[in-house]
């Protein structure tokens, strides 16, 4: 069988490349069972167990579900933008996928946009599934339509901050170390980073520090949004600074092999 191999080189239009990259990355993320556990099963378990008023952890005043639901949304954003992205990118580097793509017409910006697209698709599914589950469990989101506007803004900012951190780790450490660090940081921030447990429940001395963490900013920001207070300038600023610093560091240190 003969195939026409005669040269006809050319790059596809950038939009098509980005769409194709986002689609294959999404498919591969979804195909991975561990990622599904991280993205949906753990947050759902936390919602179900934590919304029980007997409460394993004291979340402070108010109905547990109203405190917990925004925190679980923050956790979902973090798990995909940070843990999933770091692990996936670490192994892409390890298996030469980044090297292979580096020889293709896909520019770096296109690769980043593709990854961003895949993360956004997964996050949308997470936010819808977890949001609906929280509503079924009795969540009364406060803050009106503005709260959902904040959800969008903080998700984008949080994804930029955590995604940059993910690429910083994946671009410098070997794949196995990335896997370990990404999971460890996830657990540490889950417990001690004010994602789920409100900042006010932390020791007085630790609070100024914890609120400067990207997890603290994202968790507090979403809780503030859905109680109707609205997140402060501080929250936005913290996430922006993390995104810029980690983004700059990642773009300087990232190695494709």
């Amino acid at each position: 069988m003969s195939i026409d191999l005669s040269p006809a080189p050319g790059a596809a239009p950038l939009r098509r490349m980005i769409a194709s990259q986002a689609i294959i990355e999404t498919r591969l993320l979804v195909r991975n069972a561990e990622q599904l556990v991280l993205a949906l099963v753990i947050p759902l378990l936390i919602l179900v167990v934590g919304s029980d008023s007997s409460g394993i952890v004291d979340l402070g005043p108010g109905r547990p579900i109203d405190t917990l639901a925004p925190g679980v949304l923050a956790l979902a954003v973090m798990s995909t933008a940070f843990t999933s992205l770091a692990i996936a990118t670490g192994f892409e580097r390890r298996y030469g996928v980044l090297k292979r793509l580096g020889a293709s017409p896909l520019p770096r910006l296109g690769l980043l946009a593709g990854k961003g697209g895949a993360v956004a698709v997964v996050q949308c599914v997470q936010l819808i599934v977890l949001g609906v589950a929280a509503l079924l469990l009795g969540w009364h989101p406060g803050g009106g339509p503005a709260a959902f506007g904040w959800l969008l803004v903080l998700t984008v900012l949080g994804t930029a901050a955590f995604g940059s951190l993910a690429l910083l780790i994946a671009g410098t450490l070997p794949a196995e170390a990335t896997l370990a660090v990404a999971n460890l940081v996830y657990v540490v921030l889950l417990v001690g980073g004010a994602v789920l447990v409100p900042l006010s429940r932390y020791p007085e001395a630790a609070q100024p520090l914890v609120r400067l963490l990207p997890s603290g900013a994202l968790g507090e920001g979403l809780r503030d949004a859905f109680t109707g207070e609205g997140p402060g300038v501080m929250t936005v600023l913290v996430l922006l600074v993390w995104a810029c610093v980690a983004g700059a560091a990642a773009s300087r240190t990232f190695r494709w092999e």
Partner: protein
Amino acid sequence: MPNTLANVVTVAVEVAGLVMRYGATTAVDGLSLQVTAGSVTAVLGPNGAGKTTTIETCEGYRRPQGGTVRVLGLDPLSDARALRPRVGVMLQRGGAWSGSHADEMLRHIASLHAHPIAVDPLLARLGLRGCGRTPYRRLSGGQQQRLGLAMAIVGRPELVFLDEPTAGLDPQARRDTWDLVDELRDSGVTVVLTTHFMDEAERLADHVHVVDNGRVVASGSPAQLMRSGAENTVRFTAEQGIDVGRLTMALPTGTKVTEQRPGTYVVTGDADAQLLATLTRWCAANGVMVREISVQRRTLEDVFLDLTGRELRA
């Protein structure tokens, strides 16, 4: 400047005085080579000779520490954006998501190009149609290798770099790959491949650069390389006591016939078709019945041994 124009047209790759070091090790030590557009060029050498480092510098993965590299007249690093669609790359290993399927992976790479080869016929051509939903990590080494080749050519490049394209392939798949390389050349694609298989270089390449210790130690067509240096040998058995003096005179100058053992004769010299014809004609004319005849052809393997004093695959 007609000279420059001619260069652009005929020289696909030009490496001049390339130096690459890893720590204290010098992987490439002043290597120079040229690749003629439209040809198949083999970079031949043992493991660790500097083949992959050289190719990867041409592919834009590494910055030359010394010397210059031009690919299609451009700089692989600063002109990367213009070069990437025009150059196909087959890595020595890997290059696919471990969970991706062969067809999905190839379709993705194809989608990054403007005029890709149709994916299904290409998969069929490379025997990858049956891989279905098998994830990449569970494909055999040979299947992974063929997918790597498919990804290199699917974008219809002008120039392809194939890093050990047949490593790990069974004999049939190896011949299929060779046929595909022939087709690429026939279609006007310039092919640069690395190999440590002598027969592969002899079979495929118009031009061979023999590399050792980071340098090119010999260059030429396989035929030129095999002609240089030591001579070929023809050995035949017949009745004993042939007049070797008369036979030697009948053969082209530079050849010599000796009766090694009674009835076993050795002809040293340039054993081409003409010599064989002359030899058998002489035997026929003199009523000599040749019972056995063999040509011990000088191979690229011998050339390499002569040049470096070492076996190629040691």
